[in-house]
């Protein structure tokens, strides 16, 4: 359905291009913006403009940042000899929330998937080699997703870095969620946790 206002129509069309938004939701948001105070809409618009203008990839780790290098790479208290490799910037947030990791990150911006046209060239892998080659890095922890694509990417990285002297390449373990009963955990996860068991 077309609205009498071409501007309203434009906003709805733009909103439907966002992930997870259908036309119905886009209409609701557009009308909400139309009725909301002018300041609110302006702040939203300005923040989106700023986002595109000021946020970029960290030239070291590839994570999103407003400063060069990013806050994590610039933090002298963090251990730069350990690099945790992840697929997306959101994965950095997930690991940071654990508070368990004090090393640095490397964001690949995806995982190998020839079907989607993603080969090693499309990932931030040469940047990873550049970081590891000069020496000083003792461990690369591959924390890609436990999917076939994530596994293939992990295996690729292991092969890529196998000849770097003094470097250990490790893969995060697959396990059972905390606080849940074994009885209720999904069987595939449990089976994998069993095959990846370790001595205590």
């Amino acid at each position, binding site marked *: 359905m077309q609205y009498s206002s071409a501007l309203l129509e434009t906003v709805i069309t733009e909103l439907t291009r966002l992930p997870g938004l259908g036309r119905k939701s886009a209409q609701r948001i557009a009308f909400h913006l139309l009725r909301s105070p002018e300041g609110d809409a302006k702040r939203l618009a300005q923040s989106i403009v700023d986002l595109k203008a000021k946020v970029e990839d960290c030239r070291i780790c590839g994570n999103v940042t407003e400063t060069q290098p990013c806050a994590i790479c610039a933090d002298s208290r963090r251990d730069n000899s350990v690099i945790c490799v992840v697929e997306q910037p959101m994965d950095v947030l997930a690991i940071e929330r654990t508070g368990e990791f004090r090393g640095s990150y490397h964001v690949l911006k995806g995982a190998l998937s020839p079907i989607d046209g993603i080969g090693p060239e499309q990932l931030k892998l040469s940047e990873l080699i550049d970081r590891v080659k000069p020496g000083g890095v003792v461990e690369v922890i591959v924390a890609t997703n436990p999917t076939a694509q994530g596994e293939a990417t992990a295996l690729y990285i292991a092969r890529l870095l196998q000849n770097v002297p003094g470097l250990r390449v490790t893969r995060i373990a697959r396990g059972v969620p905390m606080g849940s009963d074994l009885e209720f955990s999904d*069987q595939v996860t449990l*089976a*994998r946790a069993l095959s990846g068991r370790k001595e205590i």
Partner: protein
Amino acid sequence: MRLQSIELREFRNHREARFDLRGDSVLVTGENGSGKTNLIEAVVLLSIGRSFRGARDPALTRRGAATFEIRGLVEDRLGVTSEIVARGEDVAVLNGGPASRRRFLDVALCQLESAYVGSLRDYTAALRQRNRLLIAERHGPGTDPNEWSAWEEILARTGVALDRRRRTLCAEMGRNLRELSQQVDPTLDPTVEYHDGFGDSGTLEEAAVATRLQLLERARPRDRRMGWTMNGPHRARLHCAIGGEELSEGASRGYSRLYSILLRLALARAFEERQNDPPVVLLDDPESELDPRWIGRVLKLVPESSQLVVTACRELSETPSRYRRLPIDAAALASSAA
């Protein structure tokens, strides 16, 4: 698992029907077209969420109705739901070529072994990705060898796991099949054998993975010419023979039908041995195409602890006395004159 009752509303030809399935064994009788197979289909639908006829929801809904409803009451320990279905169409499944035979194994193993699901999923995903690499490289510049190896390592590792689990199940079924057939006719000699084309079952898992990795690497030029991965569990064959004849080649229809039921009962026994919970066994119209002298003996082969639901047009030529009779007309609360 034990089925207590099944209620159908607007499902296939049943407007409203309630089947009381309590007790160990139930014989559902009714004329052709009275909805016996529809009842079996409903039970399977409830268990795996899909029709074994491959039908979509509109086809399952009674003509003129908007939605259908199936309610099943089960007495069950948590989590385990399994059943073995044997139908006339099963002969076609086994005769439908290597792919449908592999699917039969995959479906059984996904129910039996949780780890199998993960291996199968990863194998299938990696296979599609490698096949895409094969095609992509035919046109473009050479791909990084490490990229090939990454996918091939997943294929080798999960491939060995799939083949070993499939082979173990086939060995179990083969043993059961021999024992069961002895009680029907000692001369039948049915066999089920799994051939993966690698012959690495005797080697250690790690060694087998390493060998397959090399094989895949060496096969790259050939696979590239063909445009797809030519070796692996996705190409494995299940050999089914009875009376010395391969099912898809020389075996008679009667023998094929008997083999098909025996194989599923052999699987039911494997379920019974591996899980504490015996599967529900559903036999749809076993008398069709089956020599009447075999019926009584075949029915005795269902695991003692399993609940059995059999359908037939009328009383079987040898109906064991412990079976409770359930005429399908008696179940219909309001049946359409379909």
